């Protein structure tokens, strides 16, 4: 399964014919065909091409809402070194 960097994920923003991918808890989902992700926009507040793990905490639905979409990869974990 493909591993996406944040930059690669950002290119899948649903605009200009690009597919719309979103990440949640390390998984990358393809939401391109969803009515609710037209042109990579979701409910005005969210954009495709991003990690939505934190945003989902405030959403009126849980992460299960993404489970119906195909998983196309994982999001590369960026480890930050302690300074």
């Amino acid at each position, binding site marked *: 399964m493909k591993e996406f960097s944040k930059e690669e994920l950002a290119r899948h923003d649903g605009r200009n014919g690009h597919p719309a991918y979103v990440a949640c808890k390390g998984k990358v989902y393809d939401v391109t065909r969803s*009515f*609710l992700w*037209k042109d990579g926009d979701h*409910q*005005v*507040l969210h954009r495709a091409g991003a990690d939505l793990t934190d945003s989902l905490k405030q959403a*009126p*639905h849980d992460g299960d809402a993404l489970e119906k979409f195909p998983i196309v990869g994982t999001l590369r974990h960026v480890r930050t070194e302690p300074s």
Partner: protein
Amino acid sequence: MARVAREMVEKSGINVDQLVGLLVKNAAAELTTFYYYTILRCNLIGLKGEGIKEIAEAARIEDRNHFEALVPRIYELGGKLPEDMKAFHDASACPPAGLPKDPTDVQALLKVLVEAERCAVRGYTHICNLTAGKDHRTYDLSQAILNEEIEHESWFSEFLGEGPSGHFMRRGETSPFVSKFLR
């Protein structure tokens, strides 16, 4: 536009353009649901379907009322409805409540109805959360609509055998919560 009313909402820290966008999307969901429920209602026939028809009709009329109640708030806040009806449909906050593949399958029809209501419940809960203590008028309106959407969900959920909700059908009047915005 109600200039000062918009300024007050802006001062509260709300991104008014985003809020208006959400209100437009939910207004689209209400009007398109009114349309799709018309088709669903027409197909609620036979021994099983007829018993649900009246409730589907009440939900249909109330969803239209929600659209009517939302529109003035959109314009007060400086927003507007899209001129293109198709763009408006496609901007809906909820997916189309289309007729199931087998229109005689009343259970499948009920699932379409309950999912549409659940989408609305999520949407208005979200708007209430965004506006609580900040934009009093939008909050009051969204909360009134939310009250009715929760009752719609309860009606259809009971028919699906998900358990009792304690609600009754409307007795005569529609939109007991939203009607104050329609006068």
